[in-house]
Structures are given as C-alpha cells and as structure tokens.
C-alpha cells in the first residue's frame, strides 16, 4: 500500500470514527473521501476500493468490453485487401521492408502471400471486409477501424502483456485494473473487473494478463469460470441452505462486532462489509449466469447454444455484466495463431475461429445499441499483433507474427462511428498514415474514460507508474 493510501485509510478511519462513533454504518464510508482535498490522481478508500469514482475529466465511456482475439488475427484475411500482395505472391519481399525487422519464426526465405479471400466494401464508410465476416457488415458504420496498429513485441506472452499492461514483462497492472483503480465499479454484488474465456485453450500469459500488478488486488480481474460456478468458492458447502447461511453470517458478524467493541480496529468493519457482499454475491452471480431470462430472439442473434460454453455466450454475459454495473469485462478467445501448422491453418481452422466470433461480436454491438448502452460503453476488438504479409511454411502455408501493422476496432464510448483510421502500404507491411502504437491506444482509451494518461499514476518503489509507461499520445482524430 502506498503511503498515500495509508494516509487516506487512516484519515478515513479517523473521520469515520469521529462522525459515527463506534457504530456500524458502511454507507457513511462512501462519501468520506469525496470531499477530502488531495493532490493525488486517484483517491481510493481501501476499505471499499471499488466504490464508484468520478474521473477527473469529462468521460464519454463509462465502461469497457474488451474482446481480446488471442493469438493475433490475420488482418490480411479479414480487413486488409491487398491486390498488389496477391500479384506478388511467391516472390521475395523487398529487402528494404525486412531490414532491421525481427520475426518469431520466419527464417528469411519466406515469400509474399496474397490472400485468397473475396473482399467487398460496405457501409457509408466503405470499409472493405472479407467474405469471412458476413455479420460484421451489419456494424461497419458503428465501428471505428484502426488499420495502422503497431506494437513492439512479437512473442505471444510478452505481446499480450504489452497490449494489456503497456509493458512486456509480467508485474504491471492490466488496463482493466487501471480502469477500476480510476473509476471503481457500480456493481455492488459482482467484481468490478471480470474476465471470460473461450476457445480450445487459455491465452498465453495466463493470470498475469488481468493481474493488478502492484495495484491492490481488489483491482485484479476476476476470471469467471466457463463451467460450474462462475466465481471460485461461490457455492456454500453441500447441506447449507440460504437460511442456514444467513444464520452463519449473522454469527460471524456478531463475533466480529464483539471484537470491534474490544479492539476498536476499523479493519473489522471492512471485513463485516466484505462478508455481507460475499453473501449477496452468492445470490447475484447465479442470477447473472441464468440466460433463461433472455428472449429466444436475443439468444439466436448472438448464436448462443444452450448449455454450451462459447464466445457467443460470453458476449451475452458481457452485456449482462455491464448492465449490472461491472466496469470492465474482458473476453479472451483462442486460437488465432495461424502459422499454418495443424489446427492453425489459414483455411478451415481460420474459418472456424472467425465463425466463432463474427456473429456474436456484431450482435453485441447491435444489442448494446438497441438498449442505448453503446453510447457510453467502449467496445474493443483485437489481438496482440497481426500476421506477416509473407507466408510461413509449415504443414500448410500460414503467416507469422507481425508487429508493424494490424487492425483493431473500437465501437461506442465516444469514438467516431463508421470511421476508418489509418492505411498501410500496398503490401501491408506498415502504416503509411494513421499509425497507432499500443501506448497511443492506451492513452486514447484512458482519455475516453476521463483520464489524462499521464496523471493516472500509482507510486511504487519510488516511481509514479502509469499504463502508458513514459509514452503515448491521444489519437484525437478518432474521437467524436
């Protein structure tokens, strides 16, 4: 805990004790910090770290749904039609484009690979989309397309960390942690930062992708499980009904009140709160997961098949989570790592993973829009990097990891709708305009949430850390 937080906690306690005597009044805690003057960028009440907070600047987005396409989707098969690349298929890439570049697996002898997918332009923004994305056609004019994304790192684990935390080694807070650190959460009975996962395996990097790093663990992403109870240890031991559990909680609380009377330690009051929230969560989390409340129409628009874990189901859960006030929902879907090997080819395997996400990604946007939630919900869709214009020869021809240019899209939450930002050269190697580095993306996302990315900081080991490290510029061209 930083000295600042300790101070704040102590001040909180002092006020709390001063105003409320020794009684129990958890509601009184909420307002305490709002009127304290402080130079601090974020004021959190460690006794209830997830209390909703106003950002310092005006915010367009109040919450985030991040659809993380783990493995690195091929922009060249989905969003980038490159006729010239097709013409040059089989030829060596121009050396000027390769000098100084590092790749994960390419040996240097690979040749250019044009895509074989049909593209057409859609919507008023005339965004070219591949035939593999029929449902995306419905949302072209709701989405802001970033075609000049670049990153620094070309291995999965480090690149995913970089995309999530702004740093390629583990140990820094993820974007979701920064967002909840800055804003808290409106959800009282659910975690403020929830992670959902689908696909054949987990994303490389594991829990460090939604870690709170050096921020308090209250801001860590809570992975909901695909099967069984969504939250670990949510279910009471067998044989214990809700009534019995009420009795249990009452007994625990009575013991804690007695201890508080003996010691006057306000930490005990926080624990009493935590137990009450846990008890409520046991009821609210199953209610959240119960999709029978959704209409058949909604279920089929997302493509949810009953009882089957899927990306579609997670998209629908994401909407239900934000409806219940959750601040940040992150979905991971694997496997986009189309090197060309078994299970990872650019043909049927790629088609399957696109099919997994196309319909439900679009349905989510349309559903949010229809419910009036899209205006202040920011949706992000993209992976940790893109794929090379060169083919990579494995069992079939695939593509290697490419850091210099890839596509990511945003929707809602104050970004321009139906806007294309950035173009790449004729072979898709790098952006010729509208380049957006990961740090710039982070700066922009924080801006939309109401933060100056240089001011949302946390001091640890003598340094003020931030999501954008020491970089980042807000991409104002894409703001509404």
């Amino acid at each position: 805990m930083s000295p600042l937080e300790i101070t704040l906690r102590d001040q909180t306690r002092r006020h709390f004790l001063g105003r409320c005597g020794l009684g129990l009044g958890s509601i009184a805690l909420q307002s305490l910090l709002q009127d304290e003057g402080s130079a601090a960028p974020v004021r959190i009440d460690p006794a209830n770290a997830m209390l909703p907070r106003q950002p310092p600047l005006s915010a367009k987005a109040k919450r985030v749904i991040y659809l993380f396409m783990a493995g690195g989707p091929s922009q060249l098969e989905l969003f980038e039609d490159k006729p010239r690349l097709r013409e040059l298929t089989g030829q060596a890439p121009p050396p000027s484009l390769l000098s100084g570049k590092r790749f994960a697996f390419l040996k240097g002898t690979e040749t250019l690979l044009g895509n074989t997918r049909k593209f057409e332009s859609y919507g008023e923004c005339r965004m070219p989309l591949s035939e593999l994305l029929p449902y995306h056609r419905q949302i072209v004019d709701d989405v802001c397309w970033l075609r000049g994304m670049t990153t620094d790192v070309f291995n999965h684990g480090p690149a995913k960390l970089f995309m999530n935390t702004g740093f390629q080694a583990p140990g820094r807070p993820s974007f979701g942690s920064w967002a909840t650190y800055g804003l808290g959460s409106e959800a009282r009975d659910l975690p403020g930062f929830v992670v959902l996962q689908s696909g054949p395996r987990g994303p490389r990097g594991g829990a460090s992708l939604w870690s709170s790093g050096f921020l308090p663990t209250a801001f860590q992403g809570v992975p909901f499980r695909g099967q069984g109870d969504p939250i670990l240890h949510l279910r009471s031991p067998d044989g214990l009904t809700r009534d019995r559990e009420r009795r249990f909680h009452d007994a625990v609380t009575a013991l804690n009140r007695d201890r508080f009377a003996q010691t006057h330690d306000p930490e005990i009051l926080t624990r009493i709160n935590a137990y009450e929230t846990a008890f409520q969560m046991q009821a609210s989390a199953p209610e959240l997961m119960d999709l029978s409340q959704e209409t058949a129409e909604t279920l089929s628009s997302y493509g949810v098949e009953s009882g089957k874990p899927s990306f579609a189901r997670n998209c629908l859960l994401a909407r239900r989570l934000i409806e219940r006030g959750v601040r940040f929902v992150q979905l991971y879907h694997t496997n986009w790592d189309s090197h060309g090997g078994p299970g990872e080819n650019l043909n049927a395997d790629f088609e399957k993973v696109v099919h997994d996400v196309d319909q439900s990604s679009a349905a989510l946007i349309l559903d949010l829009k229809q419910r009036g939630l899209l205006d202040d919900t920011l949706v992000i869709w993209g992976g940790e990097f893109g794929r090379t214009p060169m083919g990579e020869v494995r069992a079939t021809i695939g593509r290697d990891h490419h850091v210099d240019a890839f596509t990511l899209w945003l929707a809602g939450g104050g970004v321009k709708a139906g806007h294309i930002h950035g173009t790449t050269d004729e072979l898709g190697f790098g952006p010729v305009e509208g380049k957006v580095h990961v740090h710039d993306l982070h700066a922009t996302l924080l801006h939309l949430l109401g933060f100056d990315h240089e001011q949302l900081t946390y001091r640890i080991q003598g340094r003020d850390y931030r999501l954008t490290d020491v970089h980042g510029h807000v991409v104002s061209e894409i703001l509404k």
Partner: protein
Amino acid sequence: MSVVAPPLVRWMASVFALGILATTALGADRIRFNEQIRPLLSDRCFACHGPDGKRREADLRLDLRDHAVGDADGPLAIVPGSPDKSPLWERITSTDPDLQMPPASAKKPKFTPAELALIRRWIEEGAEYEGHWAFLPLKSTVPPSVALPTRNPIDAFVRAKLVAIGLAPSPPADRATLLRRVTLDLTGLLPSPEEVLAFVQDPHEDAYERVVDRLLASPQYGERWGRHWLDQARYADSSGYAIDAPRDMWPYRDWVIDALNRDLPFDQFTIEQLAGDLLPNATKSQVMATAFHRNTLINQEGGSDREQFRVEATMDRVNTTGAVWLGLTVGCAQCHTHKFDPITQREYYELLAFFNSAQDANDRGPAIEVRRGEVFGNPEVFPAEPTPLPKEELARLRAAWEQTTRERLAAVATTPVMTVWSPVKYGTLQTESKSGGFQRQDDNSLLYDRRGSGNERFLIELSTELPTVAAVRLRLLTHDDLPKGGPGTAGNGNFVLTDFTIRVSDQKQMIARAFADHEQPGFPIPSAIDGDATTGWAINVGPGSTARMNANHEATFVLAKPLLLNGRSMTVELAHGLNKNYLIGRFALDVTSTVPDERKPDDQALLAALQKPDAQRTKEELAALQAAFEKAEPRARPVKKEPNPHIAQLMVMRDQPEPRETYIFTRGDFTRPDKDAGKLSAGVLSAVAPALPDATSPRTRLDLARWLVHPDNPLTPRVTVNRIWMRYFGRGLVETEEDFGTQGTPPSHHELLDWLSREFQRQGWSQKRLHRLIVLSETYQQSSRERPELTERDPRNLLLARQQRLRLEAEITRDAALSASGLLNVVLGGPSVFPPQPDGVYAFTQVNKSWPTETGPQRFRRTLYTFYYRSAPYPLFTTFDAPDFQATCTRRLRSNTPLQALTMANDVVFLELAQGLALRLAIECPDGLDRRIARAVMLCFGRPATKVETQVLNDYVTAQVADFTKDPSAAEKLLTPALRAKLPAAEAASLVLLARTLFNADNFITRE
C-alpha cells in the same frame, strides 16, 4: 538584518542549533534540509533540475548546493541568506506563466504558502544542504534517557518521541494475546491451549523470554521467516511466461529455511546467495545458495529470442539486488539516468556487468543434483540402483545369444511354416459407449467413425468357415481421414491398444502369446494381453529408429489351444483404456487354423547380420542386434535413470569462462548497445559508501556481495533491519521500505533505525538476536487496542504508542487452520506439495498443469510448501495477496475482500479443516457444548471466549442442532466417516459449523 551573515556568526549559529538538536527532542528552530526542504525540491524541481543530465533544463541543478549557489558551472539559483536576491525564490513565487516554477507543463502542484515559508526561512538561514540521509553513514546514537523506566533500548528511543508530544505508551497486551502474537510472528502457527495456559500461569519473571527462545529455536521459525525472504527471492516452482513448466527450485527454499534456523549471519547469508559459487573451496551448500538469482523467469515459448530473455533475467537480477539489499529502485536507470537518486545509467550497467557473464541464457543452465533432506544434513536414501553387468560377463552372454539366435533363425528360415490367413465375416459391430460406429471398407477392413468416447471399447463379432481357429491377426491400416493418415486416431496417428480379448459364447479364451511387426518402446505387444488397462501396445517410433509409425502394422494373437467353433461366432474386444482418443482408426481381422510362427520381416535382416563377422556389420545392423539382444536379455539393458521427484536438478549460478561484454543499452533496449560509450567493467554505485578499491582483476559477484555487507555500507543494514521491523509492526521505520532514495519517506525514528543497524552489525549480523531484541521490547509487547487520544493525535500510529492488528498472510491463514484442527503435518522441506484445489484453475493457462492432489499426510503440510505455478497460482494465494513472483516482492499488500470471505467460508480446504477441528472437539471434550465452545475458542483465538462470544456461539450451535435434527440428510453432507462414527449427525454437523464460524471470524486471521 544583514543580507549575508558574517561567516563566523553563521558558523556559531549552526553550532548552537545543532546543540539544541542534540539536547532536546524538539530542535525545530532551524530548518532541517533533509526532512523539510529536500522532499519539496525533489518533488517539484529535480525532474528537470536534478541528476539526469539529459533532461536537465536551463543547465540548472538544484540537487547539489555548489550548483544551486553558483559555485559550479551553470546559472545561480540561490543566494544563501537572501531569498529576495535568489532567482529560485522569484520563480517559485511568480505568477507570470512564463516565469513561474514549476511550469504548467510539468504538471506539478505549485508550492503552498506554508511550503514557501519554509523555503524562504531555509534560504535566510543559509541554504545549507545535507546529503540524503540514507546514503550517510550510520549515526552512532545512544538510547536517550527518558523519564519512564525502560530496560530495552528500543523503548528508550520510542518513548523519547512519545514523551515529547505528551503521549503515553499502551499497557502490555494480555498474556494470551501476547503469546498468540509472538507465536504467529516467529513461527506462523497458533499456540496450543496448553502453551497458553502454561504461559499465563508462569510466575517467573523470564517466562516471556523463555517462550521467545523456545520459538526462535523451533524449526518452524525458519519456515516462517524463510517465507518472507522467499518473497524477495521471487521463488516459485515454475519457469513463468506462457509455457510455465515446472522446475526444481525447492532445495533453494529448503536452504533458506535451514540457513535461518542455524542463524547463518546475514553478511554470510548475503555472500553465499550472491556469490557462493565464487568462494574459495565452495561447499555444496554455498553453491545451492546461489539459486537465489536462478529464480528468474525462463521463456520457453517457441520463437523466443534467447538473448532478449537472457538480458531480461540479468536486469531482473540487478533490480532484485538493488531492491533487496539497497532498498533502491535501480531499475529506473535502465533506460535513463535516475531522475531523483544519484544512480546514473552508466552505473546501472556497471552493476549489470556483475551478472552479465552468467552461463544460463533463458535455459536451465548449470544445475546440481540435490536430494530431499540433503540441505538439512540427512539426505534421503533410495534403494540401490541395478548395477550394470561387468564387461566380460556381458560379452559372454552376447556370444551365447548370438549363437542360439543364429541357429534358431537359420532353422526357421530353412523350414518355413506357411500360415494361411482367412478373412473373417463380421457380425454386429458395437462400441461400449453405443455412440460410435464403423464403416466397412472394400478390403474387409473397418474404419472407425470417431464418434464414441475417448476411451472407447470396440466389440467386434466375427465368424469364419474354418473349422478351428489357432490364431487371430489384427491388421492396422492407414487411412487418409485419420490424423496424419495414421492407423490410429491420436493427433499423431498413434493408438494404444490396452487389451485384446477373444470370447466365444461369453467365455474368455486364453491367448498364449502375441507378437507384432513393430512395437513402440515402452508399449510392447505383450501389454495388450496382460489384462492390465494401464499398459498397452502402441506404434510410435523411438529416437534413431528407421521404422515408421504411420504405416500398416500387424499383430498376431496365438490362442492357448485352437478353438473349435462349430458355427459359433466369436467376439473380439479391443480396449483403449489408457490415453484419451488414442484409438485404433482402421483395422481388419483375419484368422488361421495353423499355429503361426513368430517371424518378423526383420528376422531375415537379423539373420544376415548374425552371419557376418562383427567387423563387417553395418551401423544399422549393430544397432538392430543390440536392440534384439537387450530385448532378450534384460540385464544387458543400460541402467535407465528414472527421474526421481525426490532428487532435484537445482539451477545454480555459474559464470562462463569468457566474460560477456557489457555496454549501456540505449533506452534499455538490448538490441541497441551504446558502443560509443565504451565497454563497461563491473562497478557499484558511487553514491553509496564504501568505494570499491581499484580493480586489479575483473570484479566478480563476490566483490559485489562483500561491498553490500561492508561495515561502511549504510544501506544494507538499514534496509534489512527496517524490513524485519516492518513484519512486527505492519510498517517499517522507513515506511517506503522499498525506496530509501530521495522519493521515499524519511524514517519516523532515524536514531532508532541507525542504532538497530549498528546493533545488528555488532551482534555479528545475527537475525535471531535482532528478532529477540525487538520482540522483547515493551514497544512490541504493547496492546494493539486503538485509543481515542491516539486516533486523534497520531492516527497512523507512526510513533508506536500501541501495537497493530495485522491480517495474516495467505499461507498463515491456512497454517492457522491446520494448527487449530490438529491435522498439521510438520515435516520440514522437500518437493512442493499439492493440497486440494478447485477444478478449473487451469482453464486460463496455455499449458494445462499437473496437480496430483495429495491424499496422504502431504495434504496437511504447511502452506509454504504448496506448489506455485507462476501463471496459475494456487487460488488461496492470489485471494490473500501473495505476490505473483514475477519479480521481487519486499512487502505484501493486505486487502480485505469478499473473495476472501468466500474462500474462508466455502473452500473445501477450510471445510476439511473445520471437520478436523470438529472431530478434535468431539474427542477432546466428550460432553457438553459449553466445554466444546470454550475449547474451540481457545484453539482458534488462543484465549478464553468473551461472554458475548460464548453466547453467540451457543445460540448458533443450539439453533443449528435443532435445524439439523429436522433435516438429518443435510447434516450428513457435512460429515466425514470419522465424525459420523463419533457423534449423532445433527450434533456433529453443528460442530463443523462451529469450527467454520470461528475460522471466519476476523480474530482468527488477525494477529492482534
């Protein structure tokens, strides 16, 4: 008032001021630079006017006095004695946006009027600077004499400050609370009710002292304090990043526990971990210690750049060393000269040079074999391994084998037995799961449709026109629809046939022998007729083999006696009990009425080889002969070393003979070495004493380690003592224990910190003596109760007028439950263990992890022995703020969340321990709820229950018994067989809930 005071007057004034400082506790008359001015300048000015030359604006430095007052190059900012003539004063008070400092672009708050007043007075008083306190030598302080009687010097320092502001210390904690506190602090376990009683009733004056000595001497002390050190060593059981494979670092963990238990002096403890391998005549223990810096991550992901991750690990070693011993964030200087602290980028890379020649490069690197228990002086002994046969004996056996084999094969070759195989007629074709089926192919083979279970069992009915059947042949055939075109359904085309059985009229027919044209090493064909579902026949190829897996293969099953079918059908069963989805994909069955001879295509080749003299045999022939010989003669097989989980390959530090060249990396980027700045040699921070003597030979890690513990180095003892203090009071004397630089907080009790540091050195760096000194102080023994006047005067308890209630660490929450339940298994050290954990923890990891849940006593080992996967930590750890061990952790957070409540209440681990405690209560208190409640509270809180607690628990249990009596089936669900045998269900289940309630009380997981 004159603008500049004459030097003599100034000198006298400062002597006078110092005199006051020394004799009174207040001494607030004169501005103290380090406490009052430096933090202001550091925060608002040093980023642009500090040590970092690249970012310096207007060539102005304010961190050094000679620069600020114009005695060095660069503009003058301060005229000592004359604020109004000082440009600094003009700028910081200006309202002109072009002039004012800090400028708006710096996004720093302006100085407040109070701060301005301080700066003005400081300039008036001469603008004297002090070096940063932490870099100055340890003060030789003597404990102040205070009005209150104290026996322990710590109390004198603490009381002096309290007296100065008129606060009284708190009374001592009651004896039971004190015992629970000191037992948890020194061992991480709860005191037993007997220990509590003995201590409470002990009339001797040294009762507490004896308790402390007992605890310090117990092996659990090393486990408790070892864990704190392991946090700093970022110890874990896996390699990190995406693959995160397990590794054997547990001997290092045991080394730490043992080193603390034998009270290895901290200077030696330091030297052995950083450079044990470089000590003259290094012992094995000293080499094991160097695993400290092998706890860095290894990225095993395909396509990783080895050099990139080698550099990453090397930088982590520098940063960890800086944080652990110096309490400095040297990592800031990776990309640029430190903005606030005197650490240049060059110095960072000079430090890095100490570690840059390590042999390991994102791989296992040097490792040594360590047996379980070896660290503690009693290595586990294993059954003797088979010794290879002597050479002569082997040669004799080989010659004999060659002769008999040659004769046998030659005889077979000359008298061939013709086996005529007849195709069968298939009847019903079934699978056990009823969900898969077969497509008949034109060649009388069957293609399995892969719709059944992963361990499907095929039931093939067949008939033949042959009157008798002597053998059945199973042919495995390739097919394009199968993975890799192979005969099997596994991803690589393989299968495992665990059992092949033949039934006629439901009678199992005895199979005498089986042979196949090809066998995977470890999966020979006899395994398919041994009735053991955990062994089977498979067809992958061993290294160096010329055989092919995904080709047609066949196996022949010879019946013990020929079957007379008389028109009956027979049923062949193919079982695949071992791996999931390792099924046979396409096959055909044939029968014969003659007993076939075991003859393999290889036999011809073998015979040819046997008929040549040894010298003429080809390499392939020699290999084939050797393989056949080893198959026939088990004693000839090379002694295979099975990996023994009780023998670790501990990764250790070793330098490569040729040192790597070290350069500054531009912006910390390893692909951009700054060759213009020249090759660097190893060196230490110039701001921290002592200076290293000029090197006559290249400096090594040993030089670095010795510098860290040099008596003149003020940081190592201060940082170490401060961290130990922090564990006892929840906060260090320097609150930012990880930052002793200028951005950190100044010490609350500087004199005490320095006195303890000197005492630590004086007592031979003994950690146990330091612990003893602290826990014997009255300051430590005070009550932790909050007091209204303290809440008002010292809300953060900086002055230590009371103790502090502290939530237990993740491991200790479970250890406490283990000790209360009586189930704790106190075995020391060894490989990490796997207590129960919920399903689905690995749903988010790239590579599924092995978690063989313990079923025996290992289930109840102390929690620090729990296997730690960096990418998917044991959930309890994450929930209760254990670090992720991606980097050094010097201080854990203490959160208080609903997820913790769910864990304590519902985790099966805690429920199991609640059941254990319930059973203990049932046994120890055969009758009476009151006695059981009293005992339970004593076991969990280490003190008698209060009236309220007794009432609450009594009401709860009584209501619960009544409730369960009406619903006995619910009660049953909470019971273990042992509990059920002991008490009526309603009563037993209510006792489980009593235990669960106590585990969930704040008091249980809090050390008061």
